[in-house]
């Protein structure tokens, strides 16, 4: 196989135009954050019942996708699939950018974001959350080293492979850690399942690859640089497999919950009578985010054409957001069972299905985090040799 030559992307007006749009989103998010910081979370849709809202949905999506985006590089260097190798730099850069975007949303939604230094200096090592902070920082370090081994000249192949393997193992730990944030919440029947960790790994494979395909295809559109159609088709088929695996684990998640009598009510809530959450689950996650894209991705001709393929990729991403929304917000909307078997009521919404309507500030924070991810990726592509040179 011919040696791949990498280069910085060309400065096309389209490229910069898109960057300016992202910058505008980031500006909007910054204003929202300052506004929330000043008036308090009362201006958001979050409350004492739904304590984690849209910013957490975006943050978790991006963090989960971050580890998944690295898979493309892993397939090339850890599992030795040569045709994936040209994609490994972008895969590492995107993984870093997604993680930064996700962490930004997570951190800036803190009640006291100004106390970040405390979060980074005081650790409670029994907290899975604290471990996650270490996993995230470590991930950035490991991926940065991995990226360096890919880009520097004269690095022995063995080292590249070692760095790639370390990054791959780290990413599995990172996703397990993110999933465990929920697995740890014993009192919330929606989350009390060991399946959360493998489910999150499956989600990361799917969302990460979808984000990679979205970014690489759009960049090719804007700059002419990117990967050939044969590789794209292989990725499309792989994405179809990942989407199927996510559906499989989702089925296991709900079926295994049915074996636990106390969890029937919450399973019924998500699957049957949870209103918006039931709709998001069946229509958003299962049909639009799973079955429809799978039909396209496995289709002999549709998957080779850009438009249907991008539609499938976007559907996987939207389905992913729906899925995380159902897990995070739907899980809190269902009331805590403090007195199982009894009818309860109080001035503090005990026993009630909790309502949540995200405000414009939460949406703007979420889109700002996405824009941050894209702008970091774009700037990296502009100044580093990330993409293969156009060989046509």
């Amino acid at each position, binding site marked *: 196989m011919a040696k791949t030559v990498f280069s910085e992307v060309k400065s096309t007006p389209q490229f910069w135009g898109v960057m300016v749009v992202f910058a505008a989103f980031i500006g909007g998010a910054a204003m929202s954050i300052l506004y929330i910081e000043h008036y308090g979370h009362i201006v958001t849709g979050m409350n004492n019942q739904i304590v984690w809202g849209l910013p957490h949905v975006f943050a978790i999506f991006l963090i989960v996708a971050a580890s998944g985006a690295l898979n493309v590089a892993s397939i090339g260097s850890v599992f030795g699939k040569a045709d994936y190798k040209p994609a490994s730099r972008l895969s590492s850069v995107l993984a870093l950018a997604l993680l930064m975007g996700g962490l930004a949303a997570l951190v800036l939604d803190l*009640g006291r974001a100004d106390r970040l230094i405390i979060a980074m200096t005081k650790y409670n090592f029994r907290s899975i959350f604290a471990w996650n902070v270490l996993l995230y920082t470590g991930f950035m370090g490991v991926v940065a080293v991995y990226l360096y081994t890919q880009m520097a000249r004269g690095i022995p192949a063995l080292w590249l492979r070692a760095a790639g393997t370390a990054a791959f193992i780290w990413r599995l730990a990172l996703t397990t850690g993110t999933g465990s944030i929920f697995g740890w919440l014993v009192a919330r029947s929606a989350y009390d399942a060991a399946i959360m960790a493998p489910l999150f790994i499956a989600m990361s494979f799917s969302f990460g690859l979808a984000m990679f395909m979205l970014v690489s295809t759009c960049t090719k559109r804007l700059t002419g640089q990117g990967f050939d159609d044969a590789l794209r088709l292989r990725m499309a088929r792989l994405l179809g497999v990942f989407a199927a695996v996510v559906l499989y684990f989702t089925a296991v998640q709900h079926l295994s919950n049915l074996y636990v009598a106390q969890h029937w009510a919450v399973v019924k809530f998500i699957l049957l009578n949870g209103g918006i959450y039931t709709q998001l689950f069946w229509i958003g996650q299962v049909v639009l985010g799973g079955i429809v894209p799978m039909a396209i991705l496995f289709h002999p001709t549709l998957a080779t054409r850009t438009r249907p393929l991008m539609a499938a990729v976007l559907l996987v991403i939207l389905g992913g957001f729906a899925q995380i929304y159902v897990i995070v917000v739907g899980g809190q909307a269902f009331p805590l069972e403090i007195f199982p078997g009894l009818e309860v009521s109080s001035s503090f919404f005990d026993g009630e299905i909790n309502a949540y309507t995200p405000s414009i500030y939460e949406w703007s924070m979420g889109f700002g985090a996405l824009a941050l991810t894209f702008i970091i990726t774009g700037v990296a592509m502009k100044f580093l040799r990330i993409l293969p040179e156009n060989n046509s």
Partner: protein
Amino acid sequence: MKLPLLKSKNDATDIGRRQFLKSGAAMVTVTLAPGVTVMAYGGAAAAQANPATRWGLLIDVNKCAKDCTACVSACSNENGWQDTGNPATDAQWIRKVELRNPQTGLEQSLAVMCQHCENPPCVDVCPTGASFKRPDGIVLVDKHICIGCRYCMMACPYKARSFIHEPVTDQKPHAPRGKGTVEGCTLCVHRVDEGQQPACVDACNTTGNGAMIFGDLNDPESEIAIQLATYASSAIRSDLGLNPGVRYQNL
């Protein structure tokens, strides 16, 4: 007087000051404004708490009347949290919960607050260690360290904690509050450390129905320990194995 927020513009000096005071003062203090000082839970007072004691509450559900909210008003007055007309975001350190058994039709009413768990999930999950348990079993939030991540609220099985969604006014010097942090029942630690009972227990005895007993669960001579040893009692969600310090009779 309108107090400034507990949040200081400059956290570096905030931390520095705290560290400085930690060494000397019996109670960690921070100056809010000239002449106004609030205590932050944690530090030396917590360290001085007696590890041989375990403070607890016993609530007799049969005595707790449906229309009585004496404990709730007393807590609100004592600790300075109040109804601001935003029920979804207002803090509630203690609340009355109405129960109805759908099989028998039995209706009961009881006060629920932080259960001061022996194995508190809120403490386990807190990334910074702001949620902590004193040696005498009282579970608190150190208002200087809490970053407002709300993970403890996700983890608490009793919905015992509130996030402060708005700037707060009318803070009590002994009960620091601050926008963007999480709070909950402190078992009136400031009163307990002075040998008094929590405000809810006092109120329940004087204007309520005498449904609450406060005391040291570890002292076999205390009224609460005798009651627990003599009559059947239960903990809410005892299946979770958290061993709460708050117990209920006739539930």
